């Protein structure tokens, strides 16, 4: 995007919606802001219609604030709670269907490469655990196997939240959820391992309880996808509504889970990605 294009035509300033004006004046496009600058500029997420204490909303806000190049990023989402938040995001974002996000992103990324061969356009998939690990798993894995240069971010709330709290492939074994009335019968899927096996050059698990770490892995994932190949980030984002905990305890619950060994942050970097990241991170 040529950020100059964003300027409001003279004379129209006062009739543009205030949040648009604010975005043009103080938005993050072309400014290389990060989460450290949060609060000092107009964010990409205007507001969100999700539940109080929603871990996913927090992850989404931090993820958007970590985009290395928001002015040239297109987000592909999927049906689920996050789909309700995306209408408030000031980026081109595609709500496709439930589960086909990585297939849409494959076509999108290749087409953007055709149209802008000399320019970077980041395609970032952001979808729920049901969309990523269940209904869309085929397409997620196949996009990795084909080495599509896209970043896949899972907002892992360990359930289908939007349809009222059913078990997903990412729910813990034994969890009693709708459609798992006697407890889930098989363990949480280890998608980071699968991602690694399927050829992701960079894989990480993080959570919004450690914002700086989240910001770092999102940024790394996007930069590696741009240069090398597919990348995967899993963000543990608990759901107070369906897991029935107090909305103000979302972050402390993540910390407790980490202490109990039930959630671990992880990072896997391929040799090629390591060399690349060293080359750009040292330069700074």
């Amino acid at each position, binding site marked *: *995007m*040529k950020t100059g*294009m*964003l300027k409001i035509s003279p004379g129209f300033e006062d009739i543009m919606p205030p949040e*648009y004006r604010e975005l043009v004046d103080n938005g993050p496009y072309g400014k290389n802001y990060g989460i450290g600058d949060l609060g000092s500029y107009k964010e990409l997420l*205007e507001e969100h*219609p999700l539940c109080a204490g929603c871990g996913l909303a927090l992850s989404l806000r931090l993820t958007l604030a970590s985009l290395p190049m928001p*002015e*040239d*990023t*297109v987000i*592909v989402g999927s049906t689920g709670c996050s789909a*309700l938040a*995306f*209408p*408030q*995001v*000031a*980026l*081109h*974002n*595609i*709500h*496709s*269907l439930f589960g*086909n996000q990585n*297939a*849409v*992103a*494959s*076509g*999108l*990324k*290749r*087409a*953007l490469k*055709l*149209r*802008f061969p000399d320019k970077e*356009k980041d395609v970032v998939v952001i979808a729920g655990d049901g969309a990523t690990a269940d209904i869309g798993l*085929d*397409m997620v894995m*196949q996009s990795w196997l*084909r080495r599509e240069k896209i970043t896949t971010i899972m907002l892992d709330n360990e359930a289908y939240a939007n349809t009222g709290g059913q078990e997903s492939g990412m729910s813990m074994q034994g969890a009693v959820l709708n459609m798992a009335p006697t407890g889930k019968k098989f363990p949480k899927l280890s998608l980071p391992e699968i991602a690694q096996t399927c050829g992701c050059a960079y894989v990480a698990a993080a959570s919004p309880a450690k914002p700086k770490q989240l910001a770092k892995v999102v940024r790394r994932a996007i930069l590696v996808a741009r240069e090398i190949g597919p990348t995967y980030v899993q963000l543990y984002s608990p759901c107070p509504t369906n897991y029935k905990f107090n909305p103000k305890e979302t972050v402390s619950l993540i910390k407790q889970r980490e202490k109990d060994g039930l959630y671990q942050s992880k990072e896997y970097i391929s040799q090629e990605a390591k060399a690349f990241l060293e080359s750009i991170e040292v330069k700074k």
Partner: protein
Amino acid sequence: MIDQKIVDPDYLLFEAPRTSEYITGSEAVREAIKRANVDMAIAYPITPQSESMHLVGDIYAQGYVKEYFRGENEFAVMSSVAGASMAGVRVFTATGGPGTMRAFEVFPTWAGARLPIVCAFMTRGVNSPLTIQPDTIEMAYLLETGILMLHAENSQDLHDMLLMAFMVAEKTDVHIPVGVFADGFFVTHTRDKVNMLPEDCKLPSYDPYSAPVPVMDMENVPVRQMRDPFVMKSNFISYAAHASWQQEIDAAAERSRKYLNHYLGGLIDVEHEDADIFIATSGTAVSQSREAIAIAREEGINVGLIKIKSIRPFPREEICALASRAKGIIVPEFNRVGWLAKEICNVIDEPRKVVRGPRVFGGMTMPPELILAEIRRIHQ
């Protein structure tokens, strides 16, 4: 790869010198796509379509198409095609029968997202018990997806319709997908004389900024803040937004009429306009009907042909006018449900005039005698 120059679509389709070749329907697809200036094609095999996308792969290898890959299944392919189209390139794919059904959730979203995708549907029975035979039943399911639907009688139609499909789909006031339907095997695997266009010419490129919705490239302002009242919000504004959007897709299909009339020379072709009895049909059933008509006319029966080229938009006025003067309308079809007969009954004043058949399905060919028997019956 031959150097190709961009030419005016009207020149290419109507004026350019044609050379006749004896080729299959699948090869006609290759020849059309070679001249269509397609940026990207995505493929998944299914009989009887596979060969077409093999051949598109060949011309990708030669440089006529810029990007090509095999997706993981039809739902994924139709999704990838959507992504590519949203990013602003001209994109083509083809499928048929069970592949069409597997991808079904995506088709209405193509139309809803105003994507000018062109897809060839090589029709085939939808399964159990398993069949790979031709059958146009899948068209019945696609009628209300918002996709424009053209039905080819033969390889020549298939070739020409594919090229014009891109031009119609991409008009700013249309900008919805076009499906070009060809009866599996009868067209795809049959060799026929096709009058082809010069190889060194191609259609003008797609301009993504002609789209009535923003192309998803973060280059156009204002950036898509999807602030439209989201449909899941239960309030009057969201209901109204969604309802009017559906009507807008319908209206876009209506606006395609003028372009289709131009390119197709009318949504229908009529032979023996003054006939007492008409056979109204589409696809390869048209060819069988021609045979029956020739015999009946020798017997002195004034029977005519209505070849329906566009199923969506449906040529309701055209058919209505012809029907009002006729004694009967026979609708032969290659499917069990008789969707075309239903369509015709829906638009004419006296549906009782319609003979809903003969129908063959499960891959059988249509004996012209069946059609002839109906003609003689009405004549008496």
